[in-house]
């Protein structure tokens, strides 16, 4: 409904004024004139403020990317709004989005500033924010422009990084830079030992106390500090449980995505190279990389991931030796368990982060007997526990995501185990 239209209020004032006067004239009743007089005045004043210009409406958000739980502001710009006195904004109700004023419905006088709507997405993903209907009113509310539909703006909502930090070193550092202690000696700060001086050793490495005591030059050797490759394998085959957005109950995908974002951020900040592989409908993947820009790329991919079955075919992860594979999964899909077991047998350091919420219930489709669905769900969980036990038997640790320190213990154990000689199948 673009263009100016007379409002119901103007029509009411005209009708009551005109009919009142007509009745007074016909019946000769002056009391009705008294009743009709204010409506005649209202109609006259309203018609004086008939609009002459066509306003132009534009709206925009302050941000194009947000983190879940953060907020932005939708601002309305009016051009040629000399005839406008009042603005009404009525925003849509997209899922997992909160708006202020409540429900995104706000109106106000233009003279006091065009009202704004504050929008806060509560869940990661790509969301269309700022969709709304806008109506403009002339002074005395005689004419209305709109409601005009304003399209939204796509906003990428990045997963909130759950508070996560780990003091454990990564098992198999093989890179050139970073903060992980290597098995090889190099120019780090961690003491590796003291040995006799050899040609080529730097003089600043000479340990004078030992050299004086033994009569021969001795030097201090240190461990190198190196980075590692961390592959995050995200299971996006299905979403189990109910999501209430950030601060509410978390579904399996919520836990998976937030945990992946937190682990990625931790390792990137530690100087490690991190890669992402999503097993799901979108098959999103990001190669190994480091740095803030790479971290943002990882978060973008996590925000964009599409949940759904990947179809038939075996999973080829392209995992190279030396990388640590962190599998984030509710472990209800057979293929994920198979991949984790296969990698463990190959000698790759694999760690499974269990992201199935403890209170997850099956989504019962219409027409399905809930008792039957409940029985199937219990059977599925039994199978899952068997898979987890087998993985543990193979030496693949499985931990439930619980924020800071989740991976410390298992990372230390993996690091100790990586230093032992072993036979692997290839």
């Amino acid at each position, binding site marked *: 409904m673009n263009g100016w239209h007379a*409002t*119901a*209020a103007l*029509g*009411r*004032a005209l*009708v*009551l004024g005109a*009919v*009142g*006067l007509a*009745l*007074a*004239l016909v*019946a*000769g*009743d*002056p*009391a*009705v*004139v*008294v*009743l*009709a*007089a*204010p*409506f*005649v*005045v*209202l109609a*006259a*004043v309203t018609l*004086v*403020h008939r609009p002459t210009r066509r306003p132009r409406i534009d709206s925009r958000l302050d941000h194009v990317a947000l983190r879940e739980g953060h907020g932005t502001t939708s601002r309305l710009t009016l051009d040629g709004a000399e005839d406008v006195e*009042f603005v*009404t904004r*009525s925003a849509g109700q997209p899922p997992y989005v909160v708006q202020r*004023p*409540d*429900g995104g*419905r*706000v*109106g*106000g*006088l233009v003279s*006091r500033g065009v009202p704004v709507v504050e929008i806060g997405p509560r869940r990661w993903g790509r969301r269309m924010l700022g969709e709304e209907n806008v*109506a403009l*009113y002339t002074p*005395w*509310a005689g004419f209305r422009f709109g409601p005009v539909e304003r399209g939204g703006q796509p906003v990428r909502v990045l997963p909130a990084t759950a508070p996560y930090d780990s003091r454990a070193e990564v098992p198999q550092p093989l890179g050139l830079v970073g903060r992980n202690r290597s098995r090889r000696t190099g120019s780090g700060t961690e003491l590796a030992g003291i040995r006799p001086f050899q040609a080529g050793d730097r003089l600043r490495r000479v340990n004078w106390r030992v050299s004086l005591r033994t009569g021969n030059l001795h030097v201090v050797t240190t461990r190198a500090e190196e980075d590692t490759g961390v592959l995050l394998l995200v299971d996006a085959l299905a979403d189990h449980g109910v999501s209430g957005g950030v601060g509410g109950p978390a579904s399996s995908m919520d836990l998976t995505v937030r945990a992946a974002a937190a682990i990625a951020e931790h390792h990137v900040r530690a100087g490690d190279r991190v890669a992402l592989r999503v097993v799901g409908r979108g098959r999103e993947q990001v190669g190994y990389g480091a740095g803030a820009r790479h971290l943002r790329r990882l978060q973008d991919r996590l925000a964009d991931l599409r949940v759904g079955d990947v179809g038939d075919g075996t999973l080829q992860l392209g995992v190279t030796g030396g990388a640590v594979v962190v599998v984030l999964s509710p472990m209800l899909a057979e293929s994920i368990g198979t991949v984790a077991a296969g990698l463990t047998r190959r000698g790759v350091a694999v760690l499974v982060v269990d992201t199935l919420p403890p209170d997850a219930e099956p989504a019962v489709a219409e027409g399905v007997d809930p008792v039957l669905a409940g029985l199937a769900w219990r059977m599925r969980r039994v199978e899952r526990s068997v898979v987890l036990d087998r993985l543990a038997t193979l030496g693949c640790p499985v931990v439930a995501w619980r924020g800071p320190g989740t991976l410390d213990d298992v990372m230390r154990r993996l690091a100790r185990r990586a230093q032992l000689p072993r036979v692997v199948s290839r």
Partner: protein
Amino acid sequence: MPRSQVVLRAVVLLGPVVALLMTGPAGHWPPWWLVLPLTGLAALGAVAPDSPVVAGAGLLVLVWWTVSLGNGVPVSVLVAAAALLAGHVAALLAAYGPREMALERATVLLWVRRGALVLLAVPGAWLVARVLRGQPEQPGIWVLAVAAACVATVVGTAAVEVRRAES
């Protein structure tokens, strides 16, 4: 629904009913079979203030005043006019947006001032009606009076707007 919308819709409901009942003090209480349908219409208007139902309730009040009083101009007509106008302004404010939208204080105050300004026409019309009652009726006197009032209002408003624009 926010409190402002509840209050406005209550006024939309009560305005026409009060205006109808104001013939009572003049000795013409409306019958129940008129009060009930009017209350129903006003309730519908309170639910949908942007609908023509609100005007329907107002028309019913005007018709009852015409039928019941004849040539009388009681003081209670002033209250009836104020109630009818209050119902109209409340419906206008409530129809500014969806029912979930709260109205800010500044808008309500602006319309209270406007309503009071418009209401000034009521005692004037009442005084003129009292003075002219019983006088031999001049042909076209009412039309002339209303036209004069309209012209005066329009000129006055235009002057106010021009002054505001200049300032």
